[in-house]
C-alpha cells in the first residue's frame, strides 16, 4: 500500500482540534510500532501481546486517563463534545487490536455516563477516577439486556430482557441475577457496569466493583474473537450496592447503548481499515492466471471495490453518528430516544458493513486469508464477535424493532 488511509478514506480532519490530532498520531505510532509490526512474534500467544501492549497504551501513554475528569488529572474527554475524537482514537486502536479497543470503549463509556450523571455522586466520581488513575490496567465489563429464558418473565428494556434486579434496603440496595453473560471481560473485571431493573421494572445502571462480596464468576468462556478479554458468566447474589452507584436517570441506559454503538463502531472500523491494508498488500503482489496481477482482473477488482465501498461508507456513517451525538448548533436536534435510535441503527449498519467487507475480502486471499499468519482472520473473528454482542439477540431484531418504533410509532413490538 503506497497511499495513506487518511488520503483514501477522506475524513473531516478540519473539524478536529490539535489535541485530538496529537492523540491520534500518538496512538497510530503505538499501533504500528508496538502491535502491527510485532504480530508474528506473538502469533502463538496473542493474549500476552494484548496484556503488554494494552498496558503501554493505557498506562504509559495515558489512554486510560483520556475520559477521566480534567480537574482530577484526566484529559476530560468524557463530555459529549469529544465523542468524535474518542471514536477516531478507538479506530486507531482497533486497527491494531480490537480487544484493546473494546477494553478502552468500556472505560470511556463508564466515565461518560458517570460524569453525565454526577450530580449527587461527586464522591463516587472522585473515588472511581482515583482508582482509574492509579497504575493498574482497569477492566470494566458491561452487562447489557439481552435474551431471556423461556418460562421466566423479566423486566424489559425495549424488548430485551434485563437480567439483574435491584432491591432496596435501608442502607442502599442489593443486586441479584444468575448466570448473566457480560458483553466481554467478565472473568477479570474490576468493575461491572450492569444494566439492571429497579423494583418498578425500570431500566437503570448499577456500578459494581468486581471485588464486592456476592459476585460469582463462572469458568472462562471460549469465544470466536476478543479472546484477550476473557469472559465468564457472572451471578450477582444479593450483591450490595450503594445508593450513588445506582444510576436511575431514564436517559442512562439509552446513553450507554448510544455510546457503545458509536465507540465500537470506531473499533470495528479500525479493524476493517487494517484488513483493507492487508488485502491491499495481497492484491498488490498476488498474480493469477499465470501472469495477471490479481487486482487487474475485473472480477477480483469488483470484489476489491466492494470492500473499499463498505469501509468508506462505514467511516462516513461513523462520523455522522459522532456529529449527531456531539452537541453542535449546526446539527439538527434529536432527543435521547432519537439519538438512541440513530445510534443503534447506524451502529448495526457499520458492523454489518465492516463484516461484509472482511468476509468478501477474504475470498480474494484464498488460504492466506484463513491462516493466522496473515492476521486477516483475526479481524474477521473479532469484528464478528463485536457484531454479535452489540446488535443483540435475533440477528439485530431488537435494533429493527427500535427503529420501527421510532419511525412508525409502533406500540406492541
Amino acid at each position, binding site marked *: 500500500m503506497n497511499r495513506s488511509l487518511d488520503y483514501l478514506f477522506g475524513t473531516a480532519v478540519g473539524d478536529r482540534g490539535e489535541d485530538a490530532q496529537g492523540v491520534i498520531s500518538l496512538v497510530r505510532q503505538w499501533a504500528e510500532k508496538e502491535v502491527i509490526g510485532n504480530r508474528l512474534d506473538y*502469533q*502463538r500467544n496473542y493474549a500476552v501481546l494484548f496484556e503488554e501492549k494494552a498496558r503501554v497504551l493505557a498506562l504509559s501513554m495515558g489512554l486510560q486517563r483520556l475520559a477521566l475528569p480534567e480537574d482530577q488529572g484526566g484529559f476530560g474527554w468524557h463530555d459529549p463534545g469529544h465523542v468524535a475524537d474518542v471514536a477516531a482514537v478507538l479506530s486507531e486502536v482497533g486497527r491494531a487490536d480490537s480487544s484493546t479497543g473494546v477494553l478502552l470503549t468500556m472505560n470511556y463509556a463508564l466515565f461518560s455516563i458517570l460524569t453525565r450523571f454526577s450530580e449527587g455522586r461527586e464522591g463516587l466520581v472522585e473515588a472511581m477516577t482515583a482508582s482509574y488513575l492509579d497504575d493498574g490496567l482497569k477492566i470494566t465489563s458491561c452487562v*447489557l439486556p*439481552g*435474551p*431471556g*429464558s*423461556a418460562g421466566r*418473565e*423479566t423486566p*424489559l428494556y425495549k*424488548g*430485551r*430482557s434485563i437480567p439483574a434486579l435491584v432491591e432496596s434496603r435501608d442502607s442502599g440496595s442489593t443486586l441479584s441475577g444468575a448466570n448473566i*453473560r457480560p*458483553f466481554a471481560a467478565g472473568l477479570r473485571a474490576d468493575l461491572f457496569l450492569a444494566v439492571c431493573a429497579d423494583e418498578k421494572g425500570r431500566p437503570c445502571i448499577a456500578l459494581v466493583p468486581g471485588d464486592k462480596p456476592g459476585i460469582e464468576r463462572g469458568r472462562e*468462556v*471460549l*469465544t*470466536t*474473537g*476478543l479472546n484477550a478479554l476473557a469472559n465468564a458468566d457472572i451471578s450477582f447474589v444479593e450483591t450490595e450496592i450503594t445508593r450513588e452507584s445506582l444510576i436511575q436517570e431514564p436517559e442512562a441506559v439509552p446513553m450507554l447503548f448510544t455510546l457503545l454503538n458509536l465507540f465500537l463502531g470506531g473499533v470495528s472500523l479500525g479493524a476493517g481499515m487494517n484488513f483493507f491494508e492487508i488485502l491491499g498488500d495481497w492484491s498488490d503482489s*498476488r*498474480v*493469477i*492466471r*499465470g501472469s495477471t496481477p490479481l487486482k487487474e*482482473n475485473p*472480477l*477480483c477488482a469488483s470484489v476489491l471495490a466492494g470492500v473499499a465501498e463498505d469501509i468508506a461508507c462505514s467511516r462516513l456513517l461513523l462520523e455522522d453518528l459522532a456529529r449527531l451525538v456531539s452537541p453542535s448548533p449546526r446539527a439538527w436536534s434529536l432527543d435521547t430516544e432519537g439519538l438512541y435510535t440513530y445510534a443503534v441503527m447506524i451502529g448495526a449498519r457499520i458492523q454489518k458493513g465492516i*463484516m461484509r467487507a472482511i*468476509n468478501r475480502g*477474504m*475470498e*480474494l486471499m*484464498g*488460504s492466506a*486469508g*484463513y*491462516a*493466522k*499468519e496473515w492476521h486477516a*482472520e483475526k479481524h*474477521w*473473528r473479532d469484528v*464478528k*464477535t463485536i*457484531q*454479535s*454482542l452489540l*446488535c*443483540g*439477540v*435475533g*440477528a*439485530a*431484531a*431488537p435494533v*429493527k424493532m427500535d427503529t420501527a418504533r421510532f419511525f412508525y410509532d409502533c406500540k406492541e*413490538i
Partner: protein
Amino acid sequence: MDHFDEFSRPLEYLSPLDKHLRTVLRTYIEQEIMPLRRRYDEDWKEHTLIEPAFDKIMGELGLQKALFPQEYGGWGLAGSDYIFRFAYQLCEELGRADTGMAVALAVTFWPLLVIHLEPYVNERLIAEFAPMFCSTNKAVFAANAMTEPQGGSDIENMGLLKGRTIRTTARQEGDQWVINGHKLWPTNSGGTARLFGVPCTTRPGSADIDDFAFIYVPADAKGVTQGGPYEKAGMAADKNGDIWFDDVRVPAWYRAHGPGRDAGAFYQLISFGQVASTAFLTGAMMNMYERLYEFVSTRTYRNRPLKENEAVAGVIGRIAGDIDICRILGHEAAMMGDRRNKPYGLPLVSEELVGKIRNIKDFVSDRAVENLGKAMDVLGCYGPDRDWDIEKHWRDIKIIQLWMGGKQLCQMESARYFFNCETL
C-alpha cells in the same frame, strides 16, 4: 419438523448403504467426536484428541478402505454406481460434527480416486497402495498436493490453463521419476499423510495436457520434507503445511496413467471435491439448525420464545429454508457424479458437469457463510460462544467457500459453461 433428518433430499437418490451407514456413523460420531469437538481447536498441532477419533472412524470402522476393491480387503465402492452419493452422506454426517474431520477423511479418498474411477483405473497401483490402507486398524491418510506458493486456483483451473502454471517438475530418469518442487496447504499435510498424489509438469510452462503428470509419492520417500501444520482460523482436525520435494525418486509406474490420461483422471477429482465440499456444508448447516432450534425455543425476546417473534421467525425461517434447498442441490450434485456412466449422464470431465457442480458448491457455500453468520447474530451475546457450536462451524466452513481454486474460479467456470465464454 421433528428431526434434522427431515431436511429434504430426493429419496430415490439414496444409496443402498444409506440406512446402515447413517446408523453406524451416528453412533460413532456421538461417542467419539461430539463430546470432544469443542476442544479440537486447542488440539490443532498435536491431534492428541483428534487422532483417536480418526483411528476409530477410519481404521476400526474401516472407512479408509472404502474405495479399494474387495479382493484387496476394501469395500469396493469406487466401482459402484453410488460412490458420489456414498461420499455425500459420509461427508454430511461427519460435517455435522466437524468439517475438519470430514475433509481429512474425504481427501484421503481424493488422490486414490485418480486410479480407481472408470475409465481411469490402474490395477497395479491399486494393488500397491491397498495394503497401506486396508491392512491396519489405525487411521491412514492420503493427501492431494496441488496448491503451490504462487497460487492454487491456477492449478485447478485446468479448463483454461491446462497445467501451464505448475512449477513442481517431474523428470524421468530410467525407470524412475525425479520430482522437485514445493507444495503447500494440502489437507493431511503437516506430517499426517502417508501418501501424496502430486500434480506436476514434465515440461514447465507447457499448456499441453500431455505434460501434466499425476505421480504418487510416499511421505517417507527420500527427499520429502514436511513443515509443521499452519495455525488457522478453524478446521483444526485438518493439518495443512508445506511439502518440499527435493530430487525425490519414485518408480516410473507411480505415475497414475500417463500423458493426457493423467489430466483427465485429475479433472475427475475436481467435481468429487466440490460434491464433498457441498456435503460438509449441508452437514454443518444441519447441526447449526439443531443448535439454533434449541436456542430460539428456550431463549426469549419480550419474554416470548424467540421463534415466536415474527421478526426472528422471518430470519430463522429463511435459514432453515435455505438448508432445505441446499440439501436438495447437494444430492443433485452427487447424483450428477453418479450418473456419469448412464446414457443420460455426463462424463466427469465434461465442461457442463464441472460448471454445474462448481456452481452448486459456490451457491451452497454462499448460503452457508451467510446463514452461519446470521445464526451467530440470532444468538446475540451467545453467538461467539464455543459452547453453542455455531461459531465453530462459522469459522470452519469459511475456507470451504475459498478452497479448490477460490470463489471466483467457481464463478468463472459457471460463466464459461453457461455463456460459452472463450477467454475466461
